[in-house]
C-alpha cells in the first residue's frame, strides 16, 4: 500500500489545478453563436419594418390584442400581403430544414478512463480504458424508430465489440409501443436508466447485482417488448412487458442465438411517476424463466427462476435518492428444492449549491446474499459501502473519485480501494 501513496499523491496534484480554476461558462461558444444569429435576425427584422411602416403597424396592433384573457383562444390568420413574398420564401426554407427527414440517424458516444488501487492481496493498481460506447438512434418514419448500442471493450489480448441493444420500435400511441430486439431487461430501475453510459450515472460503477457480465439478474433480454403509459390520471402509471429467450446456458448471456430450452421467459414492469411528486418514481418488476445449466448439480440442471424486484427513486439532485431490492427465487425441477437470493442497494447524493453546482457527493450501501444451498449462482455475497465525489467539468464530462470498502465471503478480509474515473459523452 505504501508504494501506492506516491501514485495517489501525483493524481491528487494533477487534479488540483482543475479545482483551483473557476470552471468556464458552459457552451460559451454555442451561446455566442446563438446570440449572433439573433442579432442578425433582429437587424434584418428592423430593416424590414423600417421599409414597411404600414404593415408593421397592423402586425403590432394584432399582437397587442391577442394576450388579453378575454380574447378567444384561436386567432385567425391574416392573409399575407405581396410585400411578404420574399420573407415567406425564406421562412419556408427554414421550416423545411426543421422538418424531419427519414431515416434521420443520430450518433452519440460515451467513454471513460479509470484508475484504481486496492489493498487486496495479489491485485495490481493502474489505469483502465473503460467501455467506448456508441449509441445510434434513427427515426425511420413518424412512428417507427431504431435504437442501437455498441460497445468496444478492452481485454488483455484484444478488443471485443458487443451489440448491447438493437431495437426497432413501432409506436401506435402513448399507450402502446411494440418493439423487437435486444434490450436491457426492465427489472428494477438502474438497468434501464443508465445503460452503458458511465457519465449518466452519479457513481463510477453500477451496483454489483446489476453489473454487466454479472449473473444475479439477466441484464440483457432478447425478444419482443410492449410498453406505454396507463391512463391513470395523476398516478402516472406506465408499463413494460416482454417475452423473450431468457437466459442462455451461460446465465449472464441472453440467448442471442436462440432459446436453449425452448421455454420463453417473460418480464413485466409497472411503475408510477406521480404528477404531484415530480421526481419520484416507484415500481415493481417480475421476471419468469426456466434455466438449463450446462453442468448437472446435485439438484439437477434445470431450474425455474422467479425474480421479483421493487424500486423507489427520487431523480432530482437535491437530493438524489435511489433504492432497489431484488429477490431471485430458484426451484429445482428435479428435487423441488427452493432457494432465495436477495440483493439491494441504497444510494444518496446531493448536488451542492456552490462552485456553479458542479459538485455532487454521494454514498451507496449495497448488500447481496446467496444461501449455501444455492446451485444456480456461485456465491455472490457482498457487503459494500462506497463514498465519493462527482465533479462536472462541463455539461458533458465529469471527474469522479470514490472510496470503496468491500467484504465478500465471511472468511475473506475487507478490501479497501480508491477509484478514479473521468467519463464523458460526445
Amino acid at each position: 500500500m505504501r508504494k501506492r501513496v506516491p501514485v495517489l499523491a501525483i493524481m491528487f496534484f494533477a487534479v488540483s489545478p482543475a479545482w483551483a480554476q473557476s470552471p468556464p461558462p458552459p457552451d460559451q461558444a454555442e451561446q455566442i453563436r446563438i446570440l449572433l444569429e439573433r442579432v442578425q435576425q433582429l437587424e434584418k427584422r428592423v430593416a424590414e419594418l423600417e421599409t414597411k411602416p404600414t404593415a408593421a403597424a397592423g402586425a403590432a396592433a394584432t399582437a397587442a390584442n391577442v394576450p388579453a384573457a378575454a380574447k378567444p383562444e384561436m386567432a385567425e390568420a391574416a392573409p399575407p400581403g405581396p410585400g411578404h413574398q420574399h420573407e415567406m420564401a425564406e421562412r419556408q426554407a427554414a421550416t423545411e430544414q426543421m422538418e424531419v427527414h427519414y431515416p434521420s440517424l443520430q450518433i452519440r458516444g460515451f467513454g471513460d478512463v479509470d484508475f484504481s488501487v486496492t489493498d487486496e492481496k495479489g491485485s495490481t493498481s493502474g489505469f483502465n480504458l473503460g467501455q467506448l460506447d456508441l449509441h445510434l438512434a434513427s427515426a425511420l418514419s413518424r412512428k417507427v424508430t431504431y435504437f442501437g448500442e455498441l460497445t468496444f471493450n478492452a481485454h488483455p489480448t484484444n478488443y471485443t465489440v458487443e451489440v448491447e441493444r438493437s431495437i426497432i420500435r413501432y409506436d401506435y400511441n402513448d399507450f402502446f409501443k411494440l418493439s423487437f430486439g435486444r434490450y436491457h431487461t426492465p427489472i428494477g430501475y438502474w438497468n434501464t436508466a443508465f445503460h452503458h453510459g458511465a457519465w449518466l450515472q452519479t457513481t463510477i460503477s453500477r451496483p454489483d447485482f446489476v453489473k454487466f457480465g454479472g449473473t444475479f439478474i439477466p441484464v440483457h433480454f432478447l425478444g419482443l417488448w410492449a410498453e406505454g403509459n396507463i391512463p391513470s390520471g395523476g398516478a402516472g402509471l406506465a408499463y413494460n412487458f416482454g417475452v423473450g429467450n431468457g437466459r442462455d446456458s451461460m446465465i449472464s448471456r441472453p440467448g442471442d442465438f436462440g432459446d436453449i430450452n425452448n421455454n420463453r421467459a417473460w418480464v413485466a414492469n409497472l411503475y408510477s411517476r406521480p404528477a404531484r411528486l415530480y421526481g419520484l418514481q416507484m415500481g415493481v418488476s417480475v421476471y419468469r424463466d426456466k434455466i438449463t445449466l450446462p453442468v448437472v448439480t446435485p439438484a439437477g440442471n434445470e431450474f425455474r427462476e422467479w425474480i421479483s424486484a421493487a424500486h423507489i427513486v427520487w431523480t432530482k439532485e437535491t437530493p438524489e435518492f435511489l433504492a432497489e431490492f431484488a429477490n431471485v427465487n430458484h426451484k429445482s425441477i428435479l428435487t423441488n428444492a427452493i432457494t432465495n437470493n436477495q440483493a439491494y442497494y441504497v444510494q444518496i447524493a446531493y448536488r451542492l449549491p456552490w462552485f456553479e453546482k458542479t459538485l455532487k457527493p454521494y454514498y451507496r450501501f449495497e448488500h447481496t446474499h446467496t444461501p449455501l444451498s444455492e446451485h444456480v449462482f456461485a456465491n455472490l455475497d457482498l457487503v459494500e459501502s462506497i463514498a465519493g465525489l462527482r465533479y462536472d467539468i462541463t455539461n458533458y464530462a465529469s471527474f469522479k473519485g470514490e472510496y470503496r470498502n468491500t467484504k465478500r465471503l465471511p472468511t475473506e478480509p475487507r478490501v479497501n480501494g480508491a477509484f478514479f474515473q473521468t467519463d464523458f459523452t460526445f
Partner: protein
Amino acid sequence: MSATGQRIVTFLWTILWSSVLLYSPSPAQTTRGADIAVVVNADTPVTDLSLSEVRKVLLGERQYWSSKLPVVLLIRAPEARERDVVLRVIYQMSEAQFKQYWVAKIFRAEAVTPPRIVYSNDMQFELLTALPGSIAFVDSRNMRPGVKILRVDGHLPGEKEYPLR
C-alpha cells in the same frame, strides 16, 4: 423473523431514515413577469392542459396528441426568457440538467430527438403554423394570429392564476 424478512426490514429502514435525513423543501419560486403562453399548431386536438400534463409533454412522456399526430416540441435557445420560464417552472432543471436529461432520454431509447431549438419568435411562429402537432412557449406580449393558445390549469395568459410567468 426469517433472514429474508430481516433483510427486507433493514432495506426499508435504510430507505426511511435516508428520506428523513435528506428531506428539503423546494425553494419558493417568487420570480414573476410577463405570462408565457402555451401555443400549439391550430389543428392540434387539445385546448386545455393541466400543468402536470404540460410537464409530461415537455419531458417526452406524452409523445402523441392522438394516435396519428405526434407531438413536436419547440423550445427557444438559451438566454431567451421563454426558455428560462419553461426550465424553471415546468422542468425545474438548470440548463445543464436539461441537456443531460435529453441525452439520457434518447440513450434510454425513449425518444429519438431532443426538442427542436428555435432562435427567434419569427421562426417559432413559422414552425408552429407549418408543423402539425407542434407546441411552443411564447411571451404573451408577442402573440401572432394563426395558432392556438392553450389554457393551463383552466387559465389563459393574463389571468391571475395563470402558472407560467
